[in-house]
């Protein structure tokens, strides 16, 4: 059984000027341990789709199932990493990464120990008591990822998590995040408008059409997963994927 299943999901926005169809009949499956990237032209409703998977937006039609259960009952199984790190400046790094358990009221010794383990594993233990402003951009992103991992989610949802970083940091953080997710053996859905990022990080790329978003094509990425994403960009089939996906996104909307 797939870990995440989207069955004919659609979403219609209602506003004063009428209704807009943002997502139309999207069906998708993500297997356990898979890293899936969703790409599409800007404004196509990628983030909306992720919002529905996170259970933040109820779909107008269709079903979102996590481990066979409707997402509204599976809140504890997903964890969201937002576009900007959104670390709370008034909290220490440790209190930031344990925000999730604190809200779920299960911040016990075991969880705190796990948070500390992740912090030291990914080189942040000496910043445990520091404020986020004392961290570099890459370290902030790592802290944000640890915050997503602390609740031991089945499914990570990454909403363009690198878009606020400068290009150089972006490439290194990309490697960083990818390796952490693979090491922790997590299933992840990444939404991005960056085609190279999608190809280099994921097992599967889902291309969405312009609004209303539908699944236009799904690519199985056969690059070597044992080397870091930055290196994967040098592999032979990388530009082939790139050109093909680029064409899909460029093609006028029928």
């Amino acid at each position: 059984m797939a870990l995440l299943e989207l069955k004919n999901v659609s979403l219609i926005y209602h506003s004063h000027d009428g209704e807009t169809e943002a997502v139309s009949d999207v069906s998708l499956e993500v297997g356990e341990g898979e890293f899936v990237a969703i790409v599409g032209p800007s404004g196509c409703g990628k983030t909306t789709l992720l919002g529905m998977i996170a259970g933040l937006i109820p779909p107008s039609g269709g079903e979102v199932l996590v481990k066979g259960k409707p997402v509204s009952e599976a809140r504890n199984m997903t964890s969201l990493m937002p576009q900007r790190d959104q670390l709370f400046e008034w909290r220490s790094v440790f209190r930031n990464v344990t925000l999730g358990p604190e809200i779920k009221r299960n911040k016990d010794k075991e969880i705190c120990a796990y948070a500390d383990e992740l912090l030291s594993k990914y080189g942040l233990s000496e910043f445990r008591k520091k404020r986020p402003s004392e961290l570099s951009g890459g370290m902030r992103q790592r802290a944000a990822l640890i915050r997503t991992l602390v609740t031991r989610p089945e499914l990570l949802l990454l909403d363009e998590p690198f878009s606020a970083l400068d290009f150089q940091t972006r490439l290194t953080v990309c490697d960083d995040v990818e390796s952490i997710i693979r090491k922790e053996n997590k299933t992840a859905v990444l939404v991005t408008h960056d085609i190279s990022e999608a190809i280099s990080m994921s097992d599967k790329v889902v291309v969405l059409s312009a609004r209303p978003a539908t699944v236009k094509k799904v690519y199985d990425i056969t690059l070597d997963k044992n080397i870091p994403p930055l290196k994967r960009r040098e592999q032979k089939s990388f530009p082939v994927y790139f050109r093909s996906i680029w064409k899909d996104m460029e093609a006028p909307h029928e």
Partner: protein
Amino acid sequence: MSEEHKQYLKKQKIRKIVIRIIQIGILILLFGLWELSAYLEWADPFITSSPSRVVKSIANLYTSGQLFTHLGATLWETVISFLLSTVLGTAIAVILWWSETARRVLEPYLIVLNSLPKVALGPLIIIWVGAGRSAIVTMALMICLIITVISALTGFMSVDEEKIQLMRSMGANKFQILIKLILPANIPNILSILKINVGLSWVGTIMGEYLVSREGIGYLLVYGSQVFKLDLVMASTLMLCVLATAMYLVVALIEKLISRFY
């Protein structure tokens, strides 16, 4: 430390001292000119008073035992209205943040109340709450409250939507979002509202004392001008300057202390 850096630090220090000297110099110069002009009768000291007359006037108030009654009354009214307006204003802003319906319903009322010069309500306040201290506090409250509500609410509403979404994705309820995100994110904003409210509550209190009072600095100002005791008016004005500044400094100190832990 390099020689260059030492030089730099020394320069900065000298600059700081020079500025302080000029500041004090201006003060001495102003008071000196004021005293001199009265002494040489360039200006009529009956109209302009003079520093020595002001000091005498304050001494008189002190020996007659009235000084602290007046200062105490005004200070009490100001502090009460400052605290009340900050607490009430923030609480109302929380309610408006919580309920979009309440916010939208009350928006035009807030705009009208904010545009209205609150002094105009003076006569009504006197009739409704009586000509006493409560009228003065009400006046000051009117002046501070609406602006507190509006600025606090603006701060609450401008918290990054993505942060709220993040909390919601963790399963946070509205109360948790308020306590763990909206309020802590707004501590700097609320601190700056405190500073504005210090000034406004003084305006409100003095305004209130103009309308109704038997004691207080506002009372002294009105009384002094009616009986043409300009020494008393000047003395009251100067005492007001000192008190208002002192209260501002206290709030600024509190802000500094809080932002260290924040």
